[in-house]
């Protein structure tokens, strides 16, 4: 059973070398262990979900749902069977949850133009002082949306979830060498697309012929 949890404003500065003791404490219902686990991983899970869903609220809901699942598994009768592989396990749950939601969206919701979403994000972010950087990131999101699901997963697990290639290999069941090659290919694809976009647009973000 998870005991009463108290919220601590402090956050762990760095991840412990061995997550085992922390996971074991959390499984026993240790309050501090849960706070540390959530502080370590909640934002990484959120970033993964948000990158795919383009929706802060949905990403927050997914994050909560993922951690509730983790807590139930850790405290359940079946116990925690992923010894030493907590991170791949956590992000597998996240990916499955996001995939399910994306499938439901495709089935029921009206199709959303990712370019339209990115324009929205860019507009919100124009309030920020780092306007140029935000524009670059907006472009990057747009290009990321165009990648295949398989390539996109590697990029998001690596850069949003901050997993090592070894952990991604465990999670996806692929050799590290294959993953490195696919990662490299995805980066190349993205760079080429961004270069192509920049060739077609002027410095003011308008298409070259209009600029």
């Amino acid at each position: 059973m998870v005991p009463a949890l108290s919220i601590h404003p402090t956050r762990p500065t760095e991840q412990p070398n061995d997550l085992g003791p922390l996971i074991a404490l959390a499984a026993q219902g240790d309050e501090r262990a849960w706070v540390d686990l959530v502080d370590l991983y909640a934002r990484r899970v959120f970033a993964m979900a948000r990158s795919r869903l383009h929706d802060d609220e949905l990403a927050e809901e997914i994050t909560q749902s993922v951690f509730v699942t983790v807590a139930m598994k850790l405290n359940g009768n079946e116990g925690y069977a992923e010894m030493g592989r907590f991170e791949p396990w956590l992000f597998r749950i996240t990916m499955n949850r996001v995939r399910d939601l994306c499938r439901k969206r495709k089935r029921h919701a009206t199709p959303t133009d990712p370019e339209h979403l990115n324009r929205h994000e860019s507009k919100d972010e124009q309030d920020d002082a780092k306007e140029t950087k935000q524009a670059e990131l907006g472009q990057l999101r747009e290009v990321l949306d165009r990648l295949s699901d398989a390539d996109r997963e590697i990029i998001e697990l690596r850069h949003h979830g901050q997993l090592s290639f070894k952990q991604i290999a465990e999670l996806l069941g692929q050799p590290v060498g294959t993953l490195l090659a696919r990662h490299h290919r995805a980066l190349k694809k993205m760079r080429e697309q961004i270069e192509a976009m920049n060739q077609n647009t002027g410095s003011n973000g308008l298409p070259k012929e209009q600029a």
Partner: protein
Amino acid sequence: MSTYENNENYLAGSPQAEMNDLLNDLGHAERSRAPAGLESGVLDAIAKQVAPASLSIEQTPRISVWFSKTLKYSAAAALVLGVGVATMMTRPWQAPITTTDTSMISVMFQEDIESFLALDELDSEIDESVAELSIWAHALDSEFNDSWMALDLMESSLDTNGAL
């Protein structure tokens, strides 16, 4: 050692290195977009779903706990009162009998019996008195008749002699 190992070394000198850095920035930006209350929201969700019985997160206002306790006590008091009223309503209405009243009733009952026996005795005495009176009345009546007859005989003898 961080889990986020720097194994992008394979990109050293590659034109993809800049793209890799940009993607790291994008990941950081996405993590930073998380609302300030993300962690506390997650902890609340865990506490609610996994351990609903131990919902005493420090941020929860104490007033709600106090209110629920007050509600429970009020409900218990109302239940006891209701049962009491229902019991009183189902019983026939009567004055409560006390120990003093019980002993008084027994005394009164004894007195009633004594009075009845006394009356019965009185009744038999009355019967006897009535019988005596009746005999006395008969005796007086026959005595009176005898006297009357004697007087009548005297009168008739006076008339015959012409003087008393």
